[in-house]
């Protein structure tokens, strides 16, 4: 791959701008390694917390038009047990950043989890203040700029590693939350997590997801995510990682023009399998070559000139 594709986010060097989004496949070291071997520039793990969680009963995932609805409920083995999965991976695949997504039910819990995650070798942390379907965490924190600021401050005070904040679109003004996070010390912003949504089966007249309400991902939310990245780019100086419905290289370029320095891929793996990382990377590379740009940096936020 060419140098055109190299990006650096908050000190993390990546060979290409594609990252595995949190929540997808990131529960075991071997599956993260498989994603890396299929060309991801960096990987974000499933969100881990202080204690293990089973998550919600099934159905936890249902397909809807243009998107996917899920309410997994933050299943994870707990940050301490996750060490085992990450340690080996770190040795085998040095050079590809491994970003631990963490959640907590309070700013203190976030900080405690962050400290353990950093110690176990995470290259960076992504704070999940945006999961839309678990009470007392995720977007219940992420909807309050002051709570987000408190979480970021507490985490930054205990870890030296770069800290990204993943934001929820389920707010009136995402810019306000982004600004609060950055002011508190966030090194990058990831936008966006899933959009609160639901589906009802008309035969049984029941909500399909066991949790009734879940988060919508996939192509359906891409325009929402592009708008969020665009708005945040005008308001903050830290790098933005675009996430939400990215399936093709054209989607990736669109996010970069809106202001994203890198992009995350999740739901597209269901339709395009793990080859999606290489196909997006190749497409972005030939776009840059064809349009005469020497680096991804040169197109980040270009749509703001108009």
């Amino acid at each position, binding site marked *: 791959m060419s140098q055109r594709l190299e990006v650096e986010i908050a000190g993390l060097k990546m060979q290409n701008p594609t990252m595995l989004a949190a929540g997808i*496949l990131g529960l075991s070291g071997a599956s993260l390694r498989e994603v890396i071997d299929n060309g991801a520039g960096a990987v974000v793990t499933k969100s881990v917390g202080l204690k293990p969680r089973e998550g919600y009963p099934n159905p936890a995932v249902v397909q809807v038009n243009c998107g996917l609805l899920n309410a997994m409920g933050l299943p994870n083995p707990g940050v301490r047990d996750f060490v085992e999965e990450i340690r080996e991976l770190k040795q085998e695949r040095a050079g590809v950043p491994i970003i631990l997504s963490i959640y907590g039910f309070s700013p203190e819990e976030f900080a405690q989890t962050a400290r353990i995650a950093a110690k176990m070798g995470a290259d960076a942390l992504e704070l999940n203040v945006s999961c839309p379907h678990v009470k007392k965490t995720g977007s219940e924190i992420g909807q309050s700029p002051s709570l987000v600021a408190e979480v970021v401050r507490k985490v930054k005070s205990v870890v030296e590693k770069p800290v990204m904040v993943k934001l929820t679109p389920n707010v009136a003004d995402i810019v306000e939350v982004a600004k609060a996070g950055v002011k508190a010390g966030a090194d990058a912003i990831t936008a966006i997590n899933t959009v609160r949504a639901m589906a009802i089966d008309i035969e049984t007249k029941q909500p399909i997801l*066991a949790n009734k309400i879940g988060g919508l991902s996939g192509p359906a939310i891409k325009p929402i995510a592009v708008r969020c990245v665009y708005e945040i780019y005008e308001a903050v100086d830290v790098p933005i990682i675009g996430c939400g419905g990215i399936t093709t290289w054209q989607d990736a370029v669109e996010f970069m023009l809106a202001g994203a320095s890198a992009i995350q891929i999740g739901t597209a793996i269901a339709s395009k399998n793990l080859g999606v990382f290489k196909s997006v990377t190749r497409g972005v590379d030939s776009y840059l070559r064809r349009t005469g740009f020497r680096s991804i940096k040169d197109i980040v936020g270009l749509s703001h000139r108009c």
Partner: protein
Amino acid sequence: MSAYLTAASQLRTVRILGVNNETQTIKSFIFRDRLAAKASPGQFVMIWVPSVDEVPMSLSTINSKEGLATITVEKVGEATGKLHKMKVGDVIGVRGPFGNGYTLTNARNVMIVGGGTGLASLAPLVEEMAQHKGRRVTFLLGAKTCGELLFQERMKTVFATMNQKIVATTEDGSYGTKGLVTEPAEQLLAKEKFDMVYACGPEHMMYRMFVLTERFRVPFQASLERFMRCAIGLCGTCVIGRFRVCKDGPVFSGDQLREVKNEFGYFRRGFNGRKTAV
């Protein structure tokens, strides 16, 4: 309708058209679903039991002519318990078929090893094989006791048309040879040259068959079972090594299993990602 993802991964609600009591603890449920009826042997579906759960199930009949499919369910937990109470006309949800089924090769001398409800996914494979003459099939069937041997009539009908040999074992000796199905399998493998071995059943049995086929250098395929959620390769619940059972399996080749031999037969992951012994 959007072409996003595939029609197969959308949830359909279907009515149960028929219920068969197979054994005291196993029932079959027949439903009409065009997509499930087009599955290949060994693929699986996700069955939604409204208000209770959604669970992965093998298809035990695949009838593309009439658009019918069947799941064969052992009563083991909440979802299967609720299913066992369901009657003709009740509604269940179906997603799939998902994953890779058994690969039919031009192998001439084939061994099929089924244990317990593992027969559910093997029965359509046997019926498919019966369509193509010139193959010799040795069928090894294992169960705890005589009453738990599945599809005896159905298998007799298929086998009547085939060049075959059947060996049945029960752990209590109430039918066939007393003992585990892997014992006659080992004897046969030592005696005879097989071109392919298929297995579905308890993981210990499949692991033993894997070890035997490695020793006797026979190509192998086995259908694995893991906890599942999304069934479309995203959530990571069903991972074994670098593979996702829902997408890369559920049927794996001996070559693939060799890659995960520290995990296959030893542990599976719970919904929280933690390892538990198989």
